[in-house]
């Protein structure tokens, strides 16, 4: 119990160094996360942009210049900074159970009518003021116990005070956002599984990582965050993701430099990574006739890619029947738009509470306003140019992939993972980890057996994790009454040299 301890302060201790730190205030162009308890929404800050959130409509301008972590209330369609003291709806709220002794719930006897409250909101009254009015007009408030009074106020605050904290996006918050919205769209990848993917794959700065994912970019973004511009990431994308676009990646606010390490490679060209043709004439692979003119090959390739996309969607449609998911539509929409449009799409995902609503709003956006003409211009002028650029990038990535010796492989795919894994492990160096995620156990059991048969793979392990949250309050501590029943399954292994 050394009362005054010796300290081994290293000369290189950066301690309070602020070098390389991000700016702390919200600025135009930033993606930010609006958070109110379990509601999280990502949006890119733009002046005069209208946001929809919990049936409210407001401009984002008020947030600009304030530090991240500031709380705002919506008031007269604007964001107004709020001091943190007056509200504390979040903590110390009992999340359920043991209400057996609660009675008289319907005896509130509120003099204000619902219409009067709506009217007050229209007049621009802030949530706290409305709550004050409700307390004032409650016939029973004064006869309640102190505990009941507190509970009453919290309940009313939760309903009427629309206060959001604006946070800087990070893997945790983006994961929470998708999870709370409906984890099926990210293959039920829960945060504990995501955390394990990053650890088990030994992702760190200067790593060379292959990622094949269909989690809207959540896994890819998480990997890029851990690399922070150092290393190399090859993202293998399937036909449905035009040019490998991943909406979640945008939200991370990566700099150009940080994104420079990201390379895209199409899944349907994996068979030709090692062909000699690719070396001598990278533009002509993947067609039956080798002696084809460069430009037309590019277009053919691009078309093939588009077609593949549509076929894939169709097949999905057949398999899942009614389950034609919204994210596909959004991504398709994106493919025709510019960067701004993509961002709109992300906002749209977050804008409504029902899946149906998303589709509707997205469509409205797509056909409305001045974006339309923009997109039209783009299609005419930039189409073939972009395709050529994309083709060149793919050829670059092909070389990187062919060079092999990657430090890890991460697969979190909507496809059956086995063929992908069996192909991509060939590019992973010995003594390196691979991690395969699936929301189903059976494909991973299949993959497990195939890897074991192949050999050259150690430490094969199939796992799932249980994540349990606890309410910790004085005298009322217990696990939450609901828990997630699945966060997906993981297959992890270490590659070694084969005999």
């Amino acid at each position, binding site marked *: 119990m050394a009362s005054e301890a010796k300290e081994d302060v290293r000369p290189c201790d950066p301690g309070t160094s602020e070098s390389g730190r991000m700016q702390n205030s919200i600025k135009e162009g930033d993606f930010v996360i609006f958070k109110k308890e379990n509601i999280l929404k990502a949006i890119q800050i733009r002046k005069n942009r209208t946001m929809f959130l919990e049936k409210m409509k407001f401009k984002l301008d008020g947030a600009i210049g304030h530090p991240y972590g500031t709380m705002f209330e919506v008031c007269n369609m604007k964001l107004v900074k709020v001091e943190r003291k007056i509200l504390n709806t979040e903590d110390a709220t009992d999340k359920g*159970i043991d209400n057996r002794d609660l009675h008289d719930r319907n005896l509130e006897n509120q003099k204000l009518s619902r219409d009067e409250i709506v009217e007050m909101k229209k007049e621009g009254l802030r949530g706290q003021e409305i709550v004050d009015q409700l307390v004032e007009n409650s016939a029973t408030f004064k006869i309640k116990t102190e505990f009941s009074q507190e509970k009453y106020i919290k309940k009313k605050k939760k309903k009427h005070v629309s206060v959001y904290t604006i946070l800087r996006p990070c893997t945790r918050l983006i994961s929470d956002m998708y999870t709370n919205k409906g*984890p099926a769209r990210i293959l*039920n990848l829960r945060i504990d599984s995501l955390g394990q993917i990053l650890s088990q794959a030994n992702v760190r700065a200067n790593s060379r990582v292959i990622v094949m994912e269909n989690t809207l970019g959540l896994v890819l973004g998480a990997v890029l965050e851990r690399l922070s511009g150092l290393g190399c990431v090859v993202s293998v994308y399937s036909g449905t993701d035009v040019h490998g676009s991943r909406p979640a990646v945008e939200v991370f606010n990566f700099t150009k430099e940080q994104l420079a390490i990201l390379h895209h490679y199409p899944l349907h060209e*994996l068979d030709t990574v090692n062909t000699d043709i690719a070396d001598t004439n990278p533009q002509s692979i993947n067609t039956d006739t080798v002696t084809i003119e460069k430009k037309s090959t590019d277009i053919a390739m691009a078309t093939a890619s588009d077609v593949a996309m549509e076929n894939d969607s169709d097949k999905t449609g057949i398999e899942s029947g009614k389950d034609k998911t919204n994210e596909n539509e959004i991504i398709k929409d994106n493919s025709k738009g510019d960067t701004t449009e993509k961002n709109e799409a992300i906002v749209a995902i977050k804008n409504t509470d029902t899946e149906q609503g998303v589709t509707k709003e997205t469509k409205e956006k797509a056909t409305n306003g001045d974006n339309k003409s923009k997109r039209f211009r783009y299609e005419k002028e930039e189409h073939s140019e972009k395709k050529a650029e994309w083709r060149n990038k793919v050829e670059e990535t092909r070389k990187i992939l062919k060079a092999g010796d990657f430090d890890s492989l991460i697969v979190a795919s909507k496809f059956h993972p*086995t063929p992908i894994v069996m192909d991509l492990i060939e590019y992973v160096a010995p003594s390196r980890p691979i991690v395969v995620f699936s929301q*189903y156990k059976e494909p991973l059991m299949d993959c497990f057996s195939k890897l074991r048969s192949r050999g050259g793979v150690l430490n094969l392990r199939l796992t799932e994790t249980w994540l349990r949250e606890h309410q910790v309050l004085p005298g009322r501590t217990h696990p939450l009454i*609901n828990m997630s029943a699945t966060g997906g399954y993981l297959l992890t292994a270490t590659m070694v040299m084969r005999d």
Partner: protein
Amino acid sequence: MSFKEYRPNILDGDTVVLFMGHANMLSLKLQKGEVFQTKFGALHHDDVIGKKYGSKVRTGKGFVYVLHFTPELWTLNLPHRTQILYATDISMVTIQLDLKPGSIVVESGTGSGSLSHSIIRAIAPTGHLHTFEFHEERSKKARKEFDDHDIGEYVTVRHRDVCENGFDLEHVADAVFLDLPRPWDALVSAKTALRKEGGRLCSFSPCIEQVQKSCEKLRDLGFTEIVTLECLLRPFNVSNVSLPMPQMSSMKKRKYETDAEDCDGATKVLKQPDGNLKEDDDPQKDEVKNKGSETKNVVKDEESEIFNLRPYVDSHDAVTICGSNAKFKTGIPPTLMPGHTGYLTFATLLPYG
């Protein structure tokens, strides 16, 4: 209807379960000449009365199944007067309290009678339940329910605050069950209620602080084998899943598509049966849908082939490839499951005195 025994035919005055799909059941008391509106149209009570339990009965626009109540179905369909214990905890309580015909059991509080029905099932016809309820109203309703359910003879319902006034039972019980906000206040009296030859005790509490105080008191009172358990039910939605095979070559694409035609028969999309009630309804489906978390690629298991023993050589594959899809049967957990109901603390009282 009786909770004492199954009765083959549905009688006027019986309370029955109307089954209209999982998580879509309700309790109905039959009365000659009455009509009940279901979401599938009118159900004439007279169409039900006289039928065998387990029959399918026409409604205006479809049909329903009429089931005999069991304590488990009662727990799912009873009128809630309080928070109740559910089947998973109830089965643990029953087995851990060593209940069997002849056991004398003390319970407090009676609450909505969810556990009481299961206790009586285990101990009838030679045992007896002494159940105590703090609220007079609830206690009266429970009394009436037990009588209506033909199990009144096995239970004594008392309206009494046992924490204040004790059980007023001396050395008669084989087992005591407590579901009280302050169980520790009832433990001395619970010990007195247990036979001197020993017995078992269970205390159900949602919060760990209640458990801590109870365990301390149990130790002080000389109870042994004090064990605190939690038991959670994780259901699986059995489904046939088709994951697309990755298209890893533009060349192979056409081939896959041709293959796919060969096995279309095995990949039918779910068709709704003609009636409104799907007999193949599965546990989580409705819930999952409501929570907006339906997973993709799931084809419901609608194979019409009858059961047969079909020899097949390569048999260990969890996943089989069919054209451009990988197909397998899996059990999909729901997005949400019960994360906590309460802690069950069990203890043994060894013989003394």
